[in-house]
């Protein structure tokens, strides 16, 4: 069986290809190749006109195979498959040949060589399509269930958007309370609201959607199996030790004799072993920190059976069609001695400073000392020349100026800003302007000569070579130095369970920043908020809603379609040796008795189409659909055929 009427379409890619590859020569070199009915070139094959041209040719010339030579199939393979489908041709009688990355870009300085390579690649595609057969996509049901990992602002936003459509949301949070990093923030820009106020607003909505949102706090994902449409997730809900309502929790907390550093306030205050991170935290039940608790029973004396110090972890199985990561970020932790951090008492990070603002009343005090002058040092743990944090953390400039403004307005603090570039982008520029107007002093340093912090009496001295005054050395005595720390990616185990790829910067990698900004390379796995890259709340909630939008297109429709590229066994050739069963890492092949003979069978739902079994089979009895031995041999032969001048 040979597809003998193949259309070949060579794209200029608006010069990306045609500046290097002679596309006219490619067309000429393939138009008389076996089984080619028509060969054409065009400026943008993916445009409306290009697509229309292919569609018309399929209909008018009765094509039974199509080759498009253009960019990477990652970009447009599905675009062109849809063209075939529209024209009534099976979409898998198509081969996408990448002559942009593989020819034009790889051999920029050798146009002739690039052209020859393009010809060989296109011919190989023609040969492959000539032996292709019609395939049907695998339809996967998508029951309306989703797992969202992380109940910070992004996770909650995404959960709400979907729950309102009647979709069942499993929202898993590792801490005992929701709200994530935002709850710890002081004034959020641009609304000016306190972080906990924002979370309160969302929690109010969350309560209304209780019937569709299952919230698991103190919970972690233990294992994930399956694939898009059919993820099977096991979670462990760690004990809270507080099991039901009681109106005497405040008294129980007061009676608790244990005090530990409060991580919610970045260790600047202490809390009890039974605690709320802040008033109004959600869920309303306090939690007991068993690492700190000595089981003295004081709280039980007050609250009785509302507290169960012997509560055990619980495991639960969840089904989900889609998984969204909203696992957030960590603030960069400066190294000891970095700008005096942990070396001098009054060097704190921006998140600590924000907590200090939230906790202070009347005057700004730290460790018993009033703070009147504060210096902020920017880009700590961001834009590093050496080191792993080469990226800009995006939110810190505006967040720092915003916090400085609040410190100035609330406590009359004078602020000095030691920066590299002020990146108060967009409308946030007004914060920069307002700070300058209010007397904030800005000094610019070069990364080659970073500021130095020393101590003199009860003051810290910030020594900076200020570029704005053409390199003048300035010494600023202050009461406190605030390090404007960046965001660093979290490496969580769940990410490895699903093999979600990381970007160079260590954050999770999207498929394409513009075309598919919230999807990952793993089907059915989406990313929301700052786990993808540093983002502020506005951008985090927008991206969270975008994941909900993406998920809704699957979950409202109830199904999705996957590529049909899985393996099939030729029972006549199969000798039942079982090598394939051992080779398959997904457990997708099993041996069954057929009339007394053992034969391999493929479990189609779990086959990933990796082809490992096809490679190991000594009889060539296993073929990967869309990449059969026949097709690959024809492809190689065509590629090696001489290209005449």
């Amino acid at each position, binding site marked *: 069986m040979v597809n003998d009427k193949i259309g070949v379409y060579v794209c200029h*890619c608006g010069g*990306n290809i045609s500046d290097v590859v002679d596309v006219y020569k490619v067309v000429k070199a393939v138009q008389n190749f076996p089984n080619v009915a028509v060969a054409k070139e065009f*400026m*943008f094959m*993916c*445009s*409306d006109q*290009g*697509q229309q041209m292919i569609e018309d040719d399929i209909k008018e010339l009765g094509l039974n195979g199509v080759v498009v030579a253009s*960019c990477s199939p990652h970009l*447009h393979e599905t*675009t062109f498959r849809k063209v075939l489908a529209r024209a009534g041709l099976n979409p898998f009688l198509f081969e996408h040949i990448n002559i942009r990355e593989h020819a034009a870009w790889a051999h920029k300085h050798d146009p002739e060589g690039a052209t020859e390579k393009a010809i060989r690649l296109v011919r190989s595609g023609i040969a492959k399509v000539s032996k292709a057969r019609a395939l049907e996509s695998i339809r996967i049901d998508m029951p309306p269930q989703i797992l969202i990992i992380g109940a910070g*602002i992004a996770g909650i*936003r995404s959960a709400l*958007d979907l729950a*309102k*459509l009647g979709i069942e949301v499993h929202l898993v949070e590792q801490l005992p309370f929701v709200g994530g990093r935002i709850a710890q923030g002081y004034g959020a820009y*641009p*609304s000016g609201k306190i972080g906990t106020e*924002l979370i309160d607003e969302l929690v109010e909505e969350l309560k209304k959607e209780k019937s569709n949102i299952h919230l698991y706090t103190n919970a972690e994902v233990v294992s994930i199996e399956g694939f898009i449409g059919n993820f099977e997730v096991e979670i462990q809900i760690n004990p809270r030790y507080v099991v039901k309502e009681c109106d005497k929790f405040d008294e129980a907390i007061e009676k608790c004799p244990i005090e530990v550093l409060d991580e919610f306030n970045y260790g600047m205050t202490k809390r009890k072993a039974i605690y709320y991170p802040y008033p109004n935290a959600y869920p309303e039940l306090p939690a007991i920190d068993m690492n700190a608790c000595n089981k003295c029973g004081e709280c039980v004396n007050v609250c009785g059976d509302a507290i169960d110090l012997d509560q055990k972890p619980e495991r639960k199985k969840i089904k989900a069609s889609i998984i969204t990561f909203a696992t957030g970020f960590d603030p960069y932790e400066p190294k000891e001695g970095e700008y005096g951090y942990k070396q001098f008492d009054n060097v704190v990070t921006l998140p600590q400073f924000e907590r200090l603002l939230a906790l202070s009343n009347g005057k700004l005090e730290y460790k018993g000392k009033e703070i009147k002058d504060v210096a902020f040092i920017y880009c700590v743990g961001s*834009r590093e020349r050496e080191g792993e944090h*080469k*990226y*800009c953390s*995006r939110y810190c400039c505006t967040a720092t100026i915003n916090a400085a403004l609040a410190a100035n307005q609330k406590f009359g603090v004078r602020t000095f800003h030691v920066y590299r570039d*002020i*990146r*108060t*982008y*967009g*409308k946030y*520029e007004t914060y920069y*302007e307002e700070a300058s107007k209010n007397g904030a002093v800005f000094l*610019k340093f070069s990364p080659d000569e970073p500021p130095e912090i020393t101590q003199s009496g009860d003051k810290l001295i910030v020594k900076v070579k200020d*570029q*704005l005054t*053409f390199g003048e050395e300035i010494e600023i005595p202050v009461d406190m130095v605030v390090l404007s720390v960046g965001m660093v990616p979290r490496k969580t185990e769940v990410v490895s369970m699903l093999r979600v790829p990381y*970007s*160079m910067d260590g*954050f999770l990698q999207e498929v*394409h*920043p*513009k*075309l598919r*900004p*919230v999807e990952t390379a793993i089907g059915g796995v989406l990313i929301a908020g700052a786990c993808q890259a540093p983002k502020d*709340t*506005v*951008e985090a*909630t*927008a991206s969270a*809603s*975008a994941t909900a*939008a*993406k998920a*809704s*297109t699957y979950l*409202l*429709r*109830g199904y999705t379609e996957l590529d049909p590229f899985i393996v099939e066994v030729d029972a006549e050739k199969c000798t039942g040796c079982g090598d394939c069963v051992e080779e398959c890492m997904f457990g997708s092949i099993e041996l069954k008795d057929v009339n007394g003979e053992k034969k391999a069978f493929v479990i189609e739902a779990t086959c990933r189409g990796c082809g490992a079994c096809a490679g190991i089979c000594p009889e060539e009895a296993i073929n990967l659909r869309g990449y059969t031995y026949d097709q690959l041999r024809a492809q190689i032969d065509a590629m090696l055929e001489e290209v005449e001048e």
Partner: protein
Amino acid sequence: MSYDVMVIGGGIAGMEASLTLADAGYQVLLVEKSPSIGGKMIELSKVFPTLDCAGCITTPKMAATANHPNITIMTYCEVQEIYKEGEGKFRVKILKKPRYVKVDDCIGCQRCEIACPIFVPKEYEYGLIGRKVAYIPFEMASPRKALIDLDNCVMCGRCERACPTDAIDFLQQPEVVEEEVKAVIIATGFKPFDACLKKEYGYGRYKNVIHALEMERLLAPSRPYNWVLRPSDGKVPDRIAYVLCVGSRDKSLDFPICSRVCCMYSTKQAILFTSALPLADVTIYYMDIRAFGKGFEEFYNMAEDMGIRFVKGKVAKITEKEDGNLVVRVENIDDGTIEEEEYDMVVLSIGLTPNSEVVKAFKNVEIELDPFGFIKPVSENTNPVLTNVKGVFVAGCAAGPKDIPDSVAEANAAAIQCIDYLYEVGAKVVVR
């Protein structure tokens, strides 16, 4: 035909929002005021920080939008009146401007264009070259249909005679159609800053001072001259300067905010010169380099490593020499000198200004604007696409300057908020 959602604006944000709504099963009416969808993005060369060609990303979105069974596109149409008559009920009046070409009959063969004797500046190329009065807006237009610009037409009738399908119709009249929709998304984008307003930089007076969108066209794959040439004498420029923050962060123009994209697009253009004009020296005069998005700082570092010169300083003045060269005067903050450098060409990195006229169409409700004239998102921290009117959402640059990834994310956010709203008003999607 009844529609669930009207999306106003067919740029990247409008297309993206439409596609998501349509994929979820809703009927979308997409109204675009110019003759083709594609917006500003289709005009661009390559896009930062991935250096993908803009056309390669935009044209398939345009095709997907045009081919989607759940999307109806009205190009060359303007939304004139919108009445909110209750939750889930908006009555809208849309003006169909006459193309003087019967769209169903036009086959896009361009014979009218060849026959037409009159040239006027081509909008799509920012006037760098001309177009005919009977014309297809640009090569990749969608729909790829002709129209006639009657203001400049001399009524010679040549196009009519050349058209093989009798598609030309000079008797077409403006027409107002009325539709009912359940929700509205505003995705009207931005207007580029008018560089003439910044008089000291001489745009409009000095021939070799151009703005960055013109440079986008000079660098684009479908570029008008297939080369970067300076306008005065067609010389290939050796020395090019970029002036950042033109029309942004400028209180003298009553526009104090930053446009978010200019630092990066200027850096990108400078990087593109390394292949377009490998010998050219490029200097970028900036106030702060704002490389804040994913991969941006790395992109900026790459530009520095490639030898692009970044100088901190706000350009005070540009003067033109007799040979067309330009002298840029600036206080160089890096070394404290007053620098006067001569360049073959100066590119003004113009900012993004509001395009909010659409709010005037809302007759019985008022859409709130922010102090700078953009549509105001009312609960930005928790839900950035809501406007003050329930059932009306905003996405992309209509709400303030932003780059393409942020616009795409917001477009999807607007789509889901819209779907949530449609559920609330009882318009659940019918699952097939």
